[in-house]
């Protein structure tokens, strides 16, 4: 029993986690590259041209994975935030702050690619559709989280304050989503809907899934790289970082 517990928490310490990430990161990059090549090949070369949207629809191979990940990363961030508050582990807060910029990037990408797609399809860069609006608010939440952490000098306090904000945000996200949705349906009547054709060609679906996996692997790789830097920066006074740096020199 006690052995299992020790194993479970073994990588909760930066000292053991740092070498582990060093070994894992190349793998995640490799998987990201493989999935990206496969997904983009299917997406750009093999998937059929959409009957209604022409070639322009192909932006969904980036757009949909970006939207998925922007939401998923927020959940993961909130999970680490909650873990950090509950168990008072240093690494959890570092993970949350390492994930935030990637999440913000995907939220921004999702809006950007959505705008590029919307202009030819709907004739507008931006509509106040429920999904667009809630994605925009998600971006605001990410930016608030990053800004709050950046404004607090003491990293422990920054972690905890950020964790509370992330958790309040995660409670609020469904409320915001539904409020935006109801607001939209109540007021704009028949506006443009984002729901796509129900029967998507299998090839398109595969391309999208592979691209989503590529984005997922990329997020893990980048977040781990960022958390490595954060670990070194925050633990710079410890022996293991000194030993590590001395080794490198």
């Amino acid at each position: 029993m006690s052995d299992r517990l020790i194993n479970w928490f073994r990588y909760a310490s930066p000292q053991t986690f740092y070498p582990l990430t060093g070994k894992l990161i190349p793998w995640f990059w490799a998987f990201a590259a493989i999935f990206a090549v496969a997904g983009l090949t299917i997406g750009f070369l093999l998937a059929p041209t959409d009957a209604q949207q022409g070639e322009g629809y192909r932006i969904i191979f980036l757009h949909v994975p970006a939207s998925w990940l922007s939401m998923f990363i927020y959940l993961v961030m909130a999970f680490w935030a909650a873990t950090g508050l509950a168990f008072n582990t240093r690494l959890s807060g570092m993970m949350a702050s390492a994930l935030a910029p990637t999440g913000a990037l995907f939220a921004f990408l999702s809006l950007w690619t959505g705008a590029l797609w919307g202009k030819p399809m709907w004739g507008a860069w931006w509509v106040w559709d429920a999904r667009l609006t809630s994605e925009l608010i998600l971006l605001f939440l990410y930016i608030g989280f990053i800004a709050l952490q950046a404004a607090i000098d003491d990293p422990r306090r920054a972690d905890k304050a950020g964790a509370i904000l992330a958790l309040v945000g995660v409670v609020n996200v469904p409320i915001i989503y539904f409020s935006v949705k109801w607001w939209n349906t109540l007021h704009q009547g028949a506006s443009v809907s984002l729901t796509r054709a129900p029967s998507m060609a299998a090839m398109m679906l595969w391309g999208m899934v592979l691209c989503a996996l590529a984005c997922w692997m990329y997020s893990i790789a980048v977040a781990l790289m960022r958390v490595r830097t954060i670990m070194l920066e925050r633990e710079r006074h410890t022996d293991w970082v000194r030993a590590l740096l001395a080794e490198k020199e």
Partner: protein
Amino acid sequence: MLELIGAVIGRDLRLAMRRQADIVAAMFFFIIVVSLFPLGVGPEADQLRKLAPGVLWVAALLATMLSLPRMFADDHRDGTLEQLALAPQPLGLIVLGKVIAHWLVAGLPLCLLAPVLGIQFDLANDALAVLTLSLLIGTPALSGIGAIGAALTLGVRGGGVLLSLLVLPLYIPVLIFGAGAVDATVSGLGAQAHLSLLGALALGGVFFAPWPTAAALRIALE
């Protein structure tokens, strides 16, 4: 429990009354922001009627934001907050008292001013009534959610701007249902659904917000 909340409310109100200029400044901010819109978009009554719910509600959000930093900052500066945190009573209840006091000082005057400003926008009587009612129901939620942001940014550099960055996205549901209630009345749909949801938000906000706020205060006091 009620005594404690009452005592906190009484204390905060007394302090606010000794600094009436702060309250009045926030009210005039509200009035000025609302009055800027007809100057900016032109005085056509039809257009103003359409804009009124959104403008009044957004101005109410901004005016509430203005007074949020003071909710804990003064107590933090003179050490009262530490005493409150050390008190045997739960910090969450004390925060609840402060939230109610903040609403009485910052939210309630907005509700009373709003119908007068609504007349500037040529709103009909029933819309004015719903506007006031929606503000009465919705502004407590603003004070509650705002308390979380105020506690998180306590003593942080650039606190004021940061506070709006944190809190305004969380205010969006209140804005949507608040302005939506007035919109629905203007377009003849009835405001019942919006007001019910607004009431749910306000109850949820005021009930749950003191808990994360208390946690954030303890972090700020560490």
